[in-house]
């Protein structure tokens, strides 16, 4: 059963390696099923390129169902493409018109160097997480379920923040390449819960310090991040990060938590 198909033109950023010069290359992909995802369309392009003996376009992906945060791509000026609240792997080709030219760029930020073509190094996010995005747990017997009472609204707030998949779209869209939305989500998901509150000061200070030393910018409350975030993380979490940082930095009572 042949479904509807379209022909598209692509302008894709090609770069041989980190620090190497890059440029846009034009491609055409014909008979693209509108039911394909954007990544499947790129798979088709790469098969064609491989058959011609060309180097395929490198891009990141893993789960292809919007949960892992590996896919990226800055499509026609928008991280994860024109649709709201989805990742690139969830973007379908029916979003585009027949004959349309689609410009595909990598995430751009000093802290996200391009590794090859559309792949960027996002390990800066991992280092921010490692700096404090966890709860120190003394392992022992399994505690009873619901031993710690957490109101539903608080659990929901933590869950909203915990939706962040660490994709980096917030940084890609931000005019300051700030990773505040990511850092705020990772601080928030623990800061509102009793288990996370014990280490809140150390966490906020250490994660912000790592954020800054990775070379991300400062937030100007522009809100481009929340507009493009596939998990719709709100900048109210950035306000919470600001509060967490302020109480930690200026209360002075837990300064010995810093390294």
């Amino acid at each position: 059963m042949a479904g509807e198909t379209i022909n598209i033109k692509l302008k894709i950023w090609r770069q041989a390696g980190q620090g190497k010069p890059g440029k846009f290359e034009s491609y055409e992909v014909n008979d693209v099923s509108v039911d394909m995802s954007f990544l499947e369309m790129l798979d088709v392009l790469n098969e064609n390129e491989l058959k011609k003996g060309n180097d395929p376009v490198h891009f990141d992906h893993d789960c292809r169902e919007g949960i892992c945060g590996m896919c990226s791509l800055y499509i026609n000026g928008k991280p994860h493409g024109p649709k709201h609240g989805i990742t690139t792997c969830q973007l379908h080709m029916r979003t585009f018109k027949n004959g349309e030219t689609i410009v595909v760029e990598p995430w751009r930020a000093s802290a996200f160097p391009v590794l090859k073509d559309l792949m960027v190094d996002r390990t800066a996010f991992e280092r921010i997480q490692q700096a404090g995005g966890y709860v120190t747990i003394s392992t022992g017997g399994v505690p009873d379920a619901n031993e710690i009472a957490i109101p539903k609204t608080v659990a929901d707030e933590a869950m909203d923040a915990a939706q962040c998949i660490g994709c980096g779209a917030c940084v890609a869209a931000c005019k300051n390449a700030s990773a505040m939305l990511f850092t705020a989500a990772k601080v928030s998901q623990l800061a509102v819960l009793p288990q996370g509150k014990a280490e809140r000061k150390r966490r906020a200070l250490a994660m912000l310090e790592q954020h800054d030393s990775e070379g991300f910018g400062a937030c100007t409350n522009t809100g481009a991040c929340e507009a493009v975030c596939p998990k719709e993380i709100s900048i109210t979490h950035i306000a919470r990060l600001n509060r967490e940082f302020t109480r930690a930095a200026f209360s002075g009572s837990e300064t010995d938590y810093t390294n």
Partner: protein
Amino acid sequence: MSWQKSLSSTIGRKIMMSLSGILLILFLAGHVSGNMTLLLGKADAFNAYAHFMSTNPAVQVIANVFKLFFVGHIFYAILLTRQNKKARGGEAYKVSNKDGSSVSKYMGVLGSVIGVFLVIHLSQYWAVMHEYAGTIGTTTVDGVQMKDLYSVVATSYQNPMIVGGYVVSMIILAYHLWHGFASAFQTLGINNKRYTPVISFVGKAYSIIVPLLFAAIPVAMFING
């Protein structure tokens, strides 16, 4: 974390921007209320107000503190802008992103125009009042002899260029406040269901009313001749 480290972090710098911004917002409220004597055409009241502001010792202390806020606001703006440009990196996007508040993207440009306005504004009135430039006459209000700043102001507002420049500057100020007012509170972490609607309403009202009142003065004085 040491004070120095806290204050030089991204959020620390933003807090300085925010606090200095909020105090400058308060400064505008004070300034515009004094200037209402001009809008009401009360020359003696304006001169008495200007005399008080330039001689009262407590006001002098406060004025010097506000100068610090101005300098601080500009200083941190430059630091943060440099940092943000560096973070964005050399390679620009071919297609730029249009999401988010567009006013926020021009805060630096808007602020720079306000800075230029401020230099001109100070050289026209403040410098004359303090006799660093120009000439100023004297007048007597309630038996006290004082400088006649009103005449300096009234004369300048017969010049359509000055009036026009003033009005344009106030429009720019309105845009700067439109983003800045609510943004300052977000930076301080004040964003919640109870206060944020009030803050953004007051912020928008403030950013229209205050520049409008400022701009009304030269326009009214120009029309009245």
